[in-house]
């Protein structure tokens, strides 16, 4: 059960941490889902072409930078609406990945790695821990991290000190691209295959986790763990209680909303 909680929360946490860095810099990246897909495909493609698992994840992370740069070009330089830009990134990934898959592997369906070609399921948890530490340290304890946060909250302070705001937002977007693509890569390698729709909405849940975790790395870790706990519980409950499984499958979402509302109500009263 504990292992299962970590399994389901780890991936979400990695994506959410990336999204958090972009969000704190002042751009909400709703293209996380598409970036995950790009990472998943790149990692499996790299493995098929002979890269080691570590190299495959690294290449996927690099591939995640591309949509981030595209996002930045539109949303920062050309000042397009970031929501529309994020949606466009998702649509781009949904179209480009099957196209590349068809071009390189002759299929729009699944691409399987041979037995043992992936990564063990527990490895993702360690990457998530490392990512959480890294983001916490980067955001809270370094000067660029501080400036990035200021870019999100009081951009005029940076401007007053002749520091570029967009530079830090670009950094935020690139970090979110790298993290989302890495999570996608780990997901695909954990399964040992690239499959259409493999990200399965995790990029969207990650956005929820950012706010559920009150926009701090430790908060995100708690929120991801809570969601993972609900997921594991809904899976386990299917064999323990006589409620239709489909109802139980909706529980993580329902309970998360209830918990969030309760928690923020209690917090407000204490103030």
């Amino acid at each position, binding site marked *: *059960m504990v292992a*299962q909680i970590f399994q389901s929360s780890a991936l979400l946490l990695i994506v959410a941490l990336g999204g958090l860095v972009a969000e704190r810099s002042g751009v909400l990246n709703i293209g996380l889902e598409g970036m995950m897909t790009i990472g998943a495909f790149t990692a499996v493609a790299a493995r098929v072409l002979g890269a080691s698992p570590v190299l495959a994840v690294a290449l996927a992370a690099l591939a995640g930078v591309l949509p981030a740069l595209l996002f930045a070009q539109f949303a920062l330089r050309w000042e397009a609406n970031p929501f529309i830009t994020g949606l466009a990134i998702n649509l781009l990934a949904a179209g480009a990945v099957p196209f590349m898959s068809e071009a390189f592997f002759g299929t729009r369906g699944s691409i399987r790695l041979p*037995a043992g070609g992936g990564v063990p*399921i527990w490895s993702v948890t360690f990457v998530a821990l490392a990512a959480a530490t890294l983001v916490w340290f980067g955001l809270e304890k370094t000067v660029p991290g501080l400036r990035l946060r200021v870019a999100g909250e009081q951009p005029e302070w940076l401007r007053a000190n002749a520091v570029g705001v967009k530079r830090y937002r670009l950094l935020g977007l690139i970090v979110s691209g790298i993290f989302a693509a890495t999570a996608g890569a780990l997901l695909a390698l954990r399964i040992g295959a690239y*499959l259409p*729709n493999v990200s*399965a909405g995790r990029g969207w849940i990650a956005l929820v986790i950012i706010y559920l975790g009150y926009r701090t790395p430790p908060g995100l870790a708690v929120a991801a763990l809570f969601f993972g706990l609900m997921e594991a519980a809904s899976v386990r409950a299917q064999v323990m209680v006589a409620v239709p*499984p489909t109802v139980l499958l909706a529980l993580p979402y329902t309970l998360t909303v209830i918990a969030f509302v309760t928690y923020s109500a209690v917090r407000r009263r204490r103030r």
Partner: protein
Amino acid sequence: MLFLVCTVGATLWAAGGTETAAGTYRIGVFVPGVVDGSPTYEMMVNGVRAAAEEEGNTEVSVVEGGFNQATWEEGVMSMAASGRYDVIVTSNPSMPEIALAVAEAIPDIRFIVLDGFLEGHPRIHTVLFNQREQAYLSGFFAGLVTTSSMPKARPERRIGLLAGQEYPIMNEVILTGFREGAQAVDPGITVDFRVLGNWFDAGKAQEIATDMIGRGSDVILTIAGGGNQGVVSAARERNAYALWYDDAGYDEGPGVVVGSSLVRQDHASYESARAAIRGRIEWGTAIILGVADDAVGFDTDHPEFLKAVPPELAAEMEALLERLRRGELVLEMPVPGR
């Protein structure tokens, strides 16, 4: 008078032949999804193509409906309205309803719907597969495996079934048939039934399957579309077996996937397309095909099956198939909605 008949006849003939050669039978195949990566739909398309090739003077075009179920009716409607097809062949339990709506709206289109059941409409013919037999075959085999001395079989008499979603046939026919089959081997076997909630989240399927294996299942039947791959990964990592449904899945996980029950969509689509071309189909009827019709089976010939499964188990499966073929064991498929 003769002249008039000739003129009208010629006009009609010309109208019918504006797009293709006269008398060409035109079949449209509507795939609710995409063909790539779906052996079931691949089989359906191949069967229709084979029939067209054999009969000659027949055109086949394939239209993919994509994964968004909400757009299927529109897709089929525009196919039918184009007037380019004499018959539309499709497959999926949700398609009879769509075929009915389209047939009501467009007067001369005909439908062959596989894997669905609808009787009584004069232009729709449906072919349903006996999924109780199919699930029984899977369950019987799972029962044999979990009680066997195969290397990954454990002493607990517990087997698993992971479904993409719950739907009446899943809950009332497949799950029941699966349990029935397993308990025919040993009445003490219990089934761990879980639902993924969709047909694509392989990551979550992997987590669920890992939990199922941890709770004692050593063999899992997976009917979860793209999620199946997650079950294979979990089974490989945690030393268990997976069973495939509908098509031979041995190559999806060599050494892990040790059994596959089959639905021969290619046979069914071939037979019904051929009958349609020859004008011999009984429109308005709904038929149910099973093991005896060679429409449902269990793949006991695949090299991976022969490698992984002890010969005495394979022989027991053959014997079960033979009993079903001869009608010594009758497993009737409950008709949906009746």
